[in-house]
């Protein structure tokens, strides 16, 4: 591995090298290359590279058309997010600015400008490459060959084009948009186009860390605390219990292994909205569980599984075991078979009990192999929307918490409630960013501690 360089320094030296290269290309280039600095693709076009030349030229024209027709307008409005609200004057609606559109297309325009600069740079590099090839007396690749390379040496571009476009439009752009929303006052009182929203700086972030007055600090940390507790139990209880069940099924001399597995796997197969909603109803005050316990005389009054905050939290974790064990059991089954049998054989010779064997052979192996999996499970559980929402919808409601947060709300379900019920988009965006920060912090700090990352050959 190369020695670690200062990333900032590396960036600037690469930047300087690029500038130098652009300069020398211009100085040493012929008129075709020099023309290409303004009219993209003229160089390749004049050298007979029709496909590339036309593509560059078309993209340049498309850029200027976009900037002229809307890009310029949205970019100029971006600093204020619009000043003229849509109003009704008399019986006529006078349309003004729309902050939502301005923010979205303003962002898009910035990205497009960055892409345009990149295109310009690529166009210069292309000219230089062609000139160099000609100087060496080689022929430029034919147009047919250029197109054909999209199925061969440039096949990655063909494969990635559509998926990357999809991710850009439906993930990258919306995420950037929402990050920006966190710095605005976009909420129920500022719904564009009738009420414009605008930039407010760090005010929303201050709000979430503010404990006094109307600050949401208390609610945020209470929800965050439960989110972490939930993720911890949901991950590790399922992990160990699932492994235990897998060991039971894998035990020598146990028959119908396939049957036991299939019975458990039904929980994965049945859509969760069917099974979880049914289980939710099973535990209600007039549900089956309470019904039978009352009938048998075991309890006098129904157990408030979903209405008592503490009990609701425990019930959720228990029901989640029901969901999680089969999944872990499947994974553990495959891995347990990989442990060499002679390890157990020799341990047995030495008179080790089953528990000792589990503690010093099975568990270390499993922890080593499934370390990264545990990490993704944990971060997945931080955002486990379905289980919480289908079982309790975050209920029971809390009187002390702000923004209608309930006792079993995770950060994501709270975010969802804010978006759908309260249209408090600015705070939803802040919560979303916080979820990202928490996930990233945990992932980064744990990932470097994992034994399988530290030492890839450790368990050979």
């Amino acid at each position, binding site marked *: 591995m190369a020695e670690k360089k200062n990333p900032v320094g590396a960036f600037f030296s690469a930047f300087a090298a690029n500038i130098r290269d652009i300069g020398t290309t211009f100085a040493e280039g012929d008129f075709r290359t020099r023309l290409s600095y303004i009219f993209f693709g003229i160089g390749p076009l004049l050298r007979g590279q029709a496909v590339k030349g036309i593509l560059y030229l078309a993209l340049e024209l498309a850029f200027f058309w976009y900037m002229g027709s809307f890009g310029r307008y949205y970019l100029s409005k971006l600093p204020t997010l619009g000043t003229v609200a849509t109003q009704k004057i008399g019986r006529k609606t006078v349309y003004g600015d729309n902050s939502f559109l301005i923010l979205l297309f303003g962002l898009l325009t910035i990205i497009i400008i960055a892409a345009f600069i990149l295109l310009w740079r690529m166009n210069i590099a292309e000219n230089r490459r062609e000139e160099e090839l000609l100087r060496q007396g080689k022929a430029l690749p034919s147009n047919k060959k250029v197109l054909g390379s999209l199925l061969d040496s440039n096949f990655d571009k063909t*494969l990635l084009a559509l998926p990357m476009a999809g991710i850009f*439009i439906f*993930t990258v752009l919306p995420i950037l948009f929402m990050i920006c929303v966190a710095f605005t006052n976009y909420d129920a009182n500022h719904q564009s186009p009738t009420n414009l929203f605008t930039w407010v700086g760090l005010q929303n972030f201050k709000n979430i860390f503010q404990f006094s007055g109307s600050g949401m600090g208390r609610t945020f940390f209470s929800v965050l605390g439960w989110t972490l507790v939930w993720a911890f139990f949901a991950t590790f209880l399922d992990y160990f219990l699932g492994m235990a069940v897998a060991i039971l099924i894998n035990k020598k001399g146990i028959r119908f292994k396939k049957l036991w597995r299939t019975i458990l796997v*039904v929980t994965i197969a049945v859509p969760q*909205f069917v099974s979880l909603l049914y289980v939710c109803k099973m535990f209600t005050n007039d549900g089956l569980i309470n019904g039978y316990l009352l009938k048998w005389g075991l309890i006098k009054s129904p157990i408030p599984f979903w209405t008592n905050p503490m009990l609701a939290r425990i019930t959720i974790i228990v029901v989640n075991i029901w969901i999680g064990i089969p999944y872990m059991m499947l994974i553990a*089954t495959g891995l347990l078979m990989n442990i060499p049998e002679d390890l157990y054989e020799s341990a047995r010779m030495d008179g080790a009990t089953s528990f000792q064997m589990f503690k010093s052979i099975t568990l270390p192996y499993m922890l080593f192999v499934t370390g990264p999996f545990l990490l993704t499970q944990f971060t997945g559980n931080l955002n486990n929307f379905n289980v919480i929402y289908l079982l309790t919808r975050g209920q029971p409601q809390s009187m002390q918490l702000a923004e209608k947060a309930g006792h079993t709300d995770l950060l994501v379900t709270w975010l*969802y409630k804010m978006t759908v019920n309260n249209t408090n988009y600015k705070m939803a965006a802040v919560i979303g960013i916080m979820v990202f920060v928490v996930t990233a912090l945990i*992932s980064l700090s744990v990932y470097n501690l994992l034994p399988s990352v530290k030492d890839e050959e450790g368990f050979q």
Partner: protein
Amino acid sequence: MKKKNASMSRKRAAGNAVTYALLILISLIWLFPFFGLIMQSFRSFDPAVEYGGMVDYIIPKTFSLDNYRFLFSGETNFLLWYRNTLVIAIFVSIGQTVFVLCVSYALSRMRFKGRELLMRFWLILGMFPGFLTMICLYFLLKQFGLTQAGAVPGLILIGVASSGMGYYVCKGYFDTIPRALDDAARIDGASRARIFFVLTIPMSKPILIYTALVAFMAPWCDYVFASYVAFGYDKGYNVAVAMQRWVWTNDYQGYFTRFCAGGVLVAIPVTILFIFLQKYYVEGVTGGAVKG
């Protein structure tokens, strides 16, 4: 020596008996909700026959098909919701498989500038909660007319568009196919595309089935986004959105048993498909877990 063996085997038999008892207990717990679901779906919602809300017994006093008759009677759009969900599931399954396959092959086999950067960037993107972008996505879909009446194509688009980021398991599988095969084919003059279609895809049947299966199952549970996109337009609902309402309506109307019947109808085909393809699912999740 013999004696010791005899006591050992007795001990083992006792141990096995305990294990069997535990396994039977576990099986009962795991199957109980499904048993309840099926039983309640046969309880009538007609007050003249039996109470249709929540009751404190499992086995219905009279078995009736009233709930199923209700679902097929056309009183609600149940068949339409079912068809919506099925259409979404099939198209999302196909689309996601294609996208994931393309991305996985490119990342596993090709070495291009920015490859590592791209993978790291997607990893970071994945740390943002999915619902964060909901309003923005809703707006984008609305621009294309893909909300409410257009909810079905809209949900397909959303389901497929960003699916390239879920390449981990599939790429892990491709990484285990020896590169020497590719190299040999290249020496024979095959192009990358040819290798992809003729060599790699036929060798990836397990991972193809795994990817398609997982993608097919997700839309059946999609409540959040589906309800947001369809937004009150009954004909654009999927089963999860539509039937969720039945659970939360008041019990005396007997919608709970109708929900159970609908749930059974949804669960049966999906479950059968899953049990059938279980082998591939196990292979996929185990491979994914080890590589992380």
